[in-house]
């Protein structure tokens, strides 16, 4: 699966798609492959304030539970409620399955994240 060139990536295998001072966050194709069949995605409430690298929720597959880490600091402005009923979409289409939308408090942080080429080198 292609890693969109317009996304930024973390070493913890999250992606963020930025638009101005906002971004949508999900997990990468590599991450969903490692997790296997996703059965639950637990997400925060709108309004939650996150620091870069802070856990914003958990994702649970048949095999294991993993934390989800925020790529940037900011406030949660939207949550993808559809994942509650259809968590398997994270496996089917990980780069379209955004989990939270975040309003960045420190947009400079995003600059230090990996680009698609760097991320694909990381998971080689």
């Amino acid at each position, binding site marked *: 699966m292609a890693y969109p060139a317009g996304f930024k990536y973390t070493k913890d295998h999250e992606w963020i798609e930025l638009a101005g001072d906002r971004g949508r966050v999900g997990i990468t194709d590599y991450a969903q492959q490692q997790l*296997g*069949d996703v059965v*639950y995605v637990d997400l925060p409430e709108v309004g939650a304030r996150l620091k870069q690298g802070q856990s914003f929720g958990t994702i649970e597959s*048949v*095999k294991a*539970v993993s934390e989800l880490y925020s790529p940037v600091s900011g406030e949660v402005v939207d949550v993808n409620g559809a994942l509650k009923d259809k968590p398997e979409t994270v496996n089917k289409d990980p780069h379209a399955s955004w989990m939270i939308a975040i309003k960045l408090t420190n947009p400079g942080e995003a600059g230090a994240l990996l680009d698609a080429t760097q991320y694909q080198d990381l998971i080689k």
Partner: protein
Amino acid sequence: MEQATEAPLKKTPLNARHRASGAKMVPFGGWDMPVEYSGLSNEHTAVRTRAGLFDVSHMGEIEIAGKDALAAVQRISCNDAAKLAVGQAQYSGLLTRQGTFVDDLLVYRLAPAHFLLVVNAGNISKDYAWIADEIKPAGDAVAVDASSRYALLALQGPEALNVLQPLTGIDLAGIKYYWFAHGEVANVRATVSRTGYTGEDGFEIFVPPQSADKIWLALLESGKAAEVIPCGLGARDTLRLEAGMRLHGNDIDETTTAVEADLNWIVGWKKDDFNGAAALREQKASGVKRKIAGFEMLERGIGRHGYDVYVGDVKSGVVTSGTQTPFLKKAIGMAYLPTGHTAPGSEFDVDIRGHRTRARVVPMPFYKRAR
């Protein structure tokens, strides 16, 4: 679950095949094993609806032979091996004096005075040392760790018989559940046992290590039309849990007795004496404080191994196994609960990472195949 130690991981004769086939490999009980081939749910479903092929060569094989072999097995194994005819197998436990599990195992009677014990991978050296010591008073019997002489393949699922039959002269339909026969599979000498750890019909096939790859490929080729696929330890675990089968190291160990684990049926109560007999008889007569029970989650979440169980506000037990089952599509598990609280329908809470989550006791097995 047994974790890998510092020592280099051991490899089964099929290791190169797993790696070449792109299986996801993990350390398990000191072995480098495939956890997943095409995906856990896919593999699980294949076994329930068609058939799946597992490499379980990491399992240990300990043989006990000699004039007093039966007496030796009777001492160390809690089930009644005298009930076994030659060609028959039984599930059993190696118990401490306290009636707790050193390991669980299958006991095969190869000949009147020759037994094969199949034990868990992570316990082979511990079991062997323990067995060799414990059988000394039994007389003329020796134990040999024969693990390196066997590769073990498990072909499991409703299509298993149809897939295996063209490769062997053994009349598979003539082998009853928990019986075995010697013969050839793909022109290689093999022992075929109608046993498994999935809750499905199927066979476990003991073969010489040098022929394991040949037979593995022959089985997949024969199973092509039925869409038989290779499966990993991940599916093996979810399948056995749906079938209500205990996993040593999770559901049973040296702190839990056969009575607490609700495995009275594998105890040879009428035998004269065996390891743990006195302790188990005492527990059977006066009862135990806790017992294992199957449960399903009533609220969203999966109660997993090690999570605490609460009855009301009181911490009352622990989850020993738990998963979301790919076939039944619900969260199930096993837990030790206070004895008064193990009746089906009883409700309790599992502490899932800080959230008290409702669960209900249900009868095991969770899944039972149609016969």
